[in-house]
């Protein structure tokens, strides 16, 4: 029964993906990557929510709480929540930059603003560095979700099947497929989490008991305490709340207007109201299923215990959809960045074809990495953010800071990424401060220092200073 429901959800999502292309000319690259910048607030909300609440939410968060208690739980909730106020102010400007330069990827924006090939390529490579752990995260989650159904498919098989489905989503419809599927997925995910949370609280005899039982086994799991754990939680919340804007650039470009983007952000925090239920379920798992070898399986172990088979199928289906959907969006980003920023000067048809080849390679490589080198999921999230957030000085340069030069930003970007690699792989002790934050500081210092020396600034005004009417004129003169 669980398998049947699960299968039905996957089939429904494939149908939605296929229908998404109806009546649209997806052969055009702009249509394929940013849906002709046409999405209403409604679709934008679902695509955004669909991409933000990845399988990291359903598998990674309970796993993190199970393994590390409130420090990980609060970090995860806090950064997403604060990302919305940041997005409310920055996202409309990102959209404006996208429209002004006809951009479909963030490196596109840099290319047009700075006319620096070096910076464009450095930014594109940073995107790849971020997109690899992010996809591993989805694959790792999918293994857990499929494993929970209990028909004993091996992790490699699950990974390969997942890659095939994600590929099928976008091959026909480009970015319209994930937008359509995300409506189904967002509703299922919300429903599934609320059900598991309510059942878990009921089984324990009330919310209070859930936390009491967890505290008996692990007294420190209910608070963050002081010292390094607190430093880690706070610095990571702030760092990732700002890094988030970089993660979300691909779907900001699909919006219809600045006002649409801005309005959409107002309502985003409300979707988070599912989290209390997820937290209940995670703490339930601490006491109900102690000593799990794989913390990532915490939510599903609790679900198998608590739910009838058909509901289990629903929960696993919702989790799988969220992973697949994001793989699809990530694949599009990879394809877009490769075909437009690494190998430009191709015709539309070739760009689209190369996009599809790149997507295939990307899915194969990340699937292989996931099978060969499994990691705790929240650590993959951190790693992805360390990289992508290094693009912040570049974004600020485009939006606000006229004084940053192309060479300065490029140098900062390289130093920032180097510091990330150094600190991450040497496991240096930095007192609990988020290492991405340290890398970002180094990045900023270098950006400013080099910008003072090498003054190849952009001749264009920062995006935030230009109003719409000027943008139009600038566009007219370049076209």
């Amino acid at each position, binding site marked *: 029964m669980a398998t049947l429901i699960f299968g039905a959800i996957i089939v429904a999502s494939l149908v939605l993906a296929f229908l998404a292309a109806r009546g649209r000319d997806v052969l055009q690259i702009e249509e394929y990557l940013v849906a002709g910048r046409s999405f209403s607030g409604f679709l934008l909300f679902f695509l955004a929510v669909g991409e933000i609440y990845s399988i990291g939410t359903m598998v990674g968060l309970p796993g993190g709480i199970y393994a590390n208690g409130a420090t990980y739980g609060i970090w995860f909730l806090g950064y997403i929540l*604060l990302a919305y106020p940041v997005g*409310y102010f920055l996202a409309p400007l990102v959209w404006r930059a996208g429209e002004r330069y006809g951009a479909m990827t963030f490196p596109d924006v840099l290319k047009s603003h700075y006319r620096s090939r070096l910076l464009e390529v450095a930014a594109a490579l940073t995107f790849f560095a971020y997109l690899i752990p992010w996809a591993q995260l989805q694959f790792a989650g999918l293994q857990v979700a499929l494993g929970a159904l209990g028909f004993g498919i091996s992790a490699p098989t699950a990974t390969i099947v997942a890659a095939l489905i994600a590929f099928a989503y976008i091959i026909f419809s480009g970015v319209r497929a994930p937008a359509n599927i995300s409506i189904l997925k967002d509703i299922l995910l919300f429903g599934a989490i609320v059900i598991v949370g309510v059942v878990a609280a009921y089984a324990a005899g009330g919310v*209070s008991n859930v936390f009491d039982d967890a505290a008996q086994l692990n007294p420190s799991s209910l608070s963050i305490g002081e010292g390094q754990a607190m430093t880690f939680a706070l610095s990571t919340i702030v760092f990732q709340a700002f890094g988030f804007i970089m993660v979300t650039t691909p779907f900001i470009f699909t919006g219809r207007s*600045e006002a649409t983007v801005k309005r959409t952000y107002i309502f985003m*925090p409300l979707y988070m109201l599912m989290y209390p239920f997820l937290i209940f379920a995670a703490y339930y798992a601490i006491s109900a299923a102690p000593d799990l070898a794989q913390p990532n399986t915490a939510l599903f172990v609790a679900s198998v215990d608590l739910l009838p088979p058909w509901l289990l199928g629903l929960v696993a289906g919702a989790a799988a959809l969220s992973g697949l959907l994001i793989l699809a969006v990530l694949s599009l980003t990879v394809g877009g960045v490769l075909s437009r920023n690494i190998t430009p000067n191709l015709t539309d048809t070739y760009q689209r074809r190369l996009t599809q080849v790149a997507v295939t390679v990307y899915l194969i490589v990340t699937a292989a990495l996931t099978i060969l080198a499994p990691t705790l999921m929240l650590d993959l999230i951190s790693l992805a953010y360390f990289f992508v957030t290094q693009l912040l000085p570049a974004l600020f340069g485009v939006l606000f800071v006229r004084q940053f030069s192309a060479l300065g930003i490029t140098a900062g970007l390289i130093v920032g990424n180097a510091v990330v690699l150094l600190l991450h792989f040497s496991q240096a002790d930095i007192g609990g401060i988020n290492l991405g934050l340290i890398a970002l500081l180094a990045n900023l210092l270098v950006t400013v220092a080099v910008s003072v020396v090498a003054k190849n600034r952009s001749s264009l005004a920062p995006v935030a200073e230009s109003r*719409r009417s000027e943008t139009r004129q600038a566009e007219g003169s370049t076209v």
Partner: protein
Amino acid sequence: MVGLVIPFVAVVGGVAVLGRFEFRVVGIPIVYFWVFLWFVLTTVCLAASWYLFDRKDFEDEEASGEHQRAEREI
């Protein structure tokens, strides 16, 4: 700035202060309860800055933008 500063100060400050305590509010550990509360309050802050400050600017631009787009298409 209503929308940006207030949620940041409240969430970061709140977690810093409340994170060390263990007591509960309606059965939920205080630090979680605080963050849950801000799911709703952040929306309130953002809605406030939209209706009080930003709405007029952005909707005017949207209207003129669409007008011009229509012209270009003709």
